[in-house]
């Protein structure tokens, strides 16, 4: 699992560690690193996807592959 975090870009890994290992809140992470909470959210979301891909590539968890998109999904 630690390898999955190490494989992340440094900033992303730092935020990930603060959240998942240190258990800091989003506001705390934002304050500590001087970032907007929005950035913390975005980095965690990005990190999540990369970790999932990292794990799936090594046979952990469901091997969810890229879904075909028909343009009907609006994240809002």
């Amino acid at each position, binding site marked *: *699992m*630690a390898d*999955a*975090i*190490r*494989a992340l870009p440094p900033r992303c890994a730092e935020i*990930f*560690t603060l*959240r*998942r*290992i*240190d258990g800091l*809140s*989003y*506001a*705390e992470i*934002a*304050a500590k690193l001087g970032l*907007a*909470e*929005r950035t913390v*959210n975005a980095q*965690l*979301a*990005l990190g*999540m*996807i*990369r*970790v*999932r*891909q*990292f*794990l*799936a*590539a090594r046979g*952990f*968890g*469901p*091997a*969810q*592959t*890229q*879904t075909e*998109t028909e343009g*009907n*999904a609006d*994240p809002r």
Partner: protein
Amino acid sequence: MNADPTTDDPIELAAAEWLVRCDRGLTPAEQAEFEAWRRTDPRHAAVYQALAGSWDLMSDARHAPSLLAGQAEREAERQAVAAAPRRRGWRLAVGLAAAVAIGLTAFLGYREYRLRPYDATFTTAIGGVEQRALPDGSVITLNTDSVVAVHLERGQRRVALQRGEAHFAVAKDKSRPFIVSANGVDVRAVGTAFSVRLRDESVDVLVTEGKVAVAPPEPPPAATATPENLTPAPAPASYLVTAGQRTSVSLKPAAAPAPVIAVPAETVRQALAWQERRLDFEDASLADIVAEMNRYSPRRLAIADPALATKRFGGSFPAGDVDTLVRQLQRNFKVTVERQGDDLVLHLPAETKAP
């Protein structure tokens, strides 16, 4: 599997966004939105589940204290582990102890930091939008041309909105109410999110999460303008505004009590679009659009023709990007632009009235 570590799958991006929001904690409104999103498409729920699965696996990373050490130590450890696998258990114990010590120190220090008295003034220029985190965990987003003065102490958290508009995401702390004062109007919250806009003749409050108590100015509003000498407790005439509602307190003497108006989610989203440096309009008059745009731009727009001012228009524009708006108006209404110094005056040409 995909070698490229990023994804451009919009479903996975949305799922990751939801996972992060769930991890942070959903408001009831977000909860409903999330359920709706999951129901929209079976793939949504499936992709979300896959992500959540690996997210949960990551909790086991807690047992890898080496992550807390620096990069160099990490490298050294990796080599040491490779060279002498037996030392691993010992290193793990020391690492765990260090992690606990670091965590405890950080927690105690952080608690002290959160509660210490704090004073600050934040300012944005015209066209600026800035987000500031306070030591208590609250976040203030200042809109264009705005000034807030923050004063935190053990018993209360006070913010004076001296100019402009700001959105407040308030960290929950029952022992310290969070009070925003704008020209004598007090908006009081415990843990919630809301916007306050100080206009010339009114104070507008829009609540996006939880609820706030709004206290209009005292009847003789003459000498009580500074936030410090207002009583912390809401006046008897205060009233509640809850998520998805707005109110506008008139600053005119002897004004009628302000009504509380429910606003649709889409309107709330539009009213907060400035936080993403966008301005959203739906079927708004050009007069309103221009007035709103002018808040964000040192170059101001004016409408010469009353017939043009009442035209209705919509769209999403970058805040303060006067030129983009003008181009759109030229395309849609064939307006002509007259330059007066830095300012732009919009005319409706006579010939287009009878094509």
